């Protein structure tokens, strides 16, 4: 049953290659519609009947390759199909949408869905590796100099980190004789010496930390997301869906090892550091794509923090933030695509007057920004409210508010584009910008961030089956704090951030390829050392 979701996109991708000299766009959009409907049906099944497990070739569980869909994974699969459909509609009129693009796009979709469903550790390695190759090719789709360089860095860094995963899985296989995630989880407590699991866990966690771009392993992410010549849907897919695969693996693997080795404190610290570093670098950028790329890093840090508190509310809060982040980051990346088409630049200081020139995109940007900063009534507010439930410590609350202040700070920079005198080049102003599919697609995603916030409780219950009561008093208090933070961020932005010198210097700080690999090895040594100290 579940395997159709993986096979169909690949088959369509191959058929699409037959249309080398004609238009295959209708076929691809049609197939996407079908896949979305089928994923919705499966989501309904999991909701009503519980977890679905597909054992391939009819062998019993733990011996066969198993596809596994519980509430968490089926929601992500459903979200993936929805986003892929939306992005396809956005790309429909783009000049980059040709047969080759369609092939890579559908293949990537199949791989990502398989990553969410697979429980076989070796399968996950294969999927990680192949999806890396596909993403690298998509990044350098236009083959210009910077794109090829960024693609190579992304490919090599990811492949090297998957090597760590493979090594870790080999060690696990030597101990357990299993490759199935759930089978290992069942027997993991029977290991006599927990120390024998430190090395495999260290290897595997290093790969995952690089995949979700935790500090200090985040340097590849702005390169991959910020490539100037990649089509606008690529960073949207990467940030909205591809990033989520790493977080999903993080949840599964830490759950698998949690009985033996508990690393919540470690990831709490790393999460906060990642978030702060992401914010500082995001504020320093002037290229819109890079700004959003660093903002992704900071949001991932926040989600890691939520997962590491260890309370139920903050866990599901992070889960909902993952869902919300996919939506609002898609809005923002897509609107950057629209802006760079209509302004012929992505420099945040040279775009002004978006509300006048492109009101539809302007409203979409407002929705996206209100979502990412956690404004009352938007989806970010629900998830951030739940994450803050994880700890009573005033220091933690202060840190969470500091992260939100930083988020507001770079959002101010983004929002400054909406107002002021229109700076569009003369030649483009004449173009019809109301009947523009990309703009309206962006707008629809923007409206979704509002709807998932307005009915946050209902969605939480609908998607994950988790009941959470939001107390109006506390919610009002949070809204009040939000307003204070907005004022503070505005003052900071006017008084300090616009003085660009200091921040421009910070913005150029980045690691070379060799330094990235050294950071990877250092992280590995650090985490293994920490685990030895712990046990």
């Amino acid at each position, binding site marked *: 049953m579940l395997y159709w979701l993986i096979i169909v996109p690949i088959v369509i991708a191959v058929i699409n290659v037959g249309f080398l000299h004609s238009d295959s766009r209708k076929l691809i959009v049609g197939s996407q519609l079908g896949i979305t409907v089928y994923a919705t049906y499966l989501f309904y099944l999991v909701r009503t009947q519980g977890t679905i497990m597909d054992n391939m070739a009819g062998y019993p569980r733990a011996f066969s390759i198993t596809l596994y869909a519980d509430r968490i994974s089926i929601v992500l699969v459903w979200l993936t199909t929805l986003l892929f459909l939306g992005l396809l509609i956005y790309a429909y009129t783009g000049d980059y949408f040709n047969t080759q693009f369609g092939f890579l796009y559908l293949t990537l979709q199949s791989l990502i869905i398989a990553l969410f469903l697979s429980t076989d550790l070796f399968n996950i390695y294969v999927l990680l*590796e192949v999806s890396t190759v596909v993403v690298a090719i998509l990044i350098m789709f236009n083959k210009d100099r*910077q*794109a090829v*360089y960024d693609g190579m860095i992304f490919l*090599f860094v990811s492949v090297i980190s998957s090597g760590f995963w493979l090594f870790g899985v080999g060690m696990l*296989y030597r101990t357990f004789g299993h490759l199935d995630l759930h089978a290992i989880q069942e027997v993991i407590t029977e290991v006599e010496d927990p120390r024998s699991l430190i090395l495999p866990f260290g290897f595997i966690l290093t790969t995952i930390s690089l995949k979700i771009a935790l500090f200090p392993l985040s340097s590849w992410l702005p390169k991959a997301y910020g490539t100037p*010549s990649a089509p606008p849907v690529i960073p949207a897919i990467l940030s909205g869906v591809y990033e989520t695969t790493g977080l999903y693996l993080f949840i599964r693997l830490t759950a698998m090892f949690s009985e033996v080795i508990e690393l919540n404190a470690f990831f709490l610290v790393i999460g906060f550091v990642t978030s702060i570093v992401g914010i500082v670098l995001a504020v320093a950028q002037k*290229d819109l794509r890079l700004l959003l790329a660093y903002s992704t890093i900071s949001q991932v840090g926040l989600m890691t923090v939520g997962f590491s508190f260890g309370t139920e509310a903050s866990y599901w809060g992070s889960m909902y933030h993952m869902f919300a982040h996919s939506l609002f980051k898609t809005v923002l990346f897509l609107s950057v695509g629209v802006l760079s088409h209509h302004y012929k630049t992505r420099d945040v200081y040279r775009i002004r007057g978006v509300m006048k020139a492109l009101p539809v995109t302007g409203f979409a940007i407002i929705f996206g920004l209100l979502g990412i900063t956690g404004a009352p009534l938007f989806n970010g507010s629900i998830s951030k409210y739940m994450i803050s439930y994880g700890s009573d410590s005033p220091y933690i609350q202060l840190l969470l508010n500091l992260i939100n202040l930083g988020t507001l700070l770079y959002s101010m920079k983004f929002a400054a584009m909406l107002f002021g005198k229109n700076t569009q080049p003369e030649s483009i102003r004449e173009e019809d910008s109301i009947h523009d599919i990309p703009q309206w697609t962006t707008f629809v995603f923007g409206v979704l961030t509002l709807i998932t916030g307005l009915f946050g409780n209902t969605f939480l219950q609908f998607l994950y089956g988790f009941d959470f009561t939001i107390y109006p008093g506390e919610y009002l208090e949070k809204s009040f704090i939000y307003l204070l933070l907005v004022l503070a961020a505005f003052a900071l932005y006017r008084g300090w951030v616009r003085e660009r010198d200091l921040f421009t210097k910070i913005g150029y700080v980045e690691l*070379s390829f*060799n330094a990235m690999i050294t950071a990877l090895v250092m992280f590995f040594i650090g985490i293994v050392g920490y685990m030895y100290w712990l046990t």
Partner: protein
Amino acid sequence: MDFITGEIVGILLFFIGLYGLMTKKTIVKTIMSMSIMESGIFLFYITINYTDGSVPPIGQAQEAAFVDPVPSALMITAIVIGIGVTAIGLTMFMHYKQKHGITHWSRNRNQTGSEH
């Protein structure tokens, strides 16, 4: 010489490859180091859980311990993927060198480009 087992040599090769990746700035050497690292992993896999005197799992009449066939099967897949990735890496590198004449990792970033 008991300590020279496949596993130990595999781990050593893995870290030799990593050392190359950390220190070499030439892109070709990066690709070579990556292959060395992967060979280390392959060697590690095919020697895990091996006991002396065991026989291949198929086509044997004698009653003896079987070798676990799974790691070898996994490694065939991994080797194929490794070859694919190396080929793609080399293709990118050749394109990059021929078009732009660059053979080393650099720090210079050029954030302007086509308008997509």
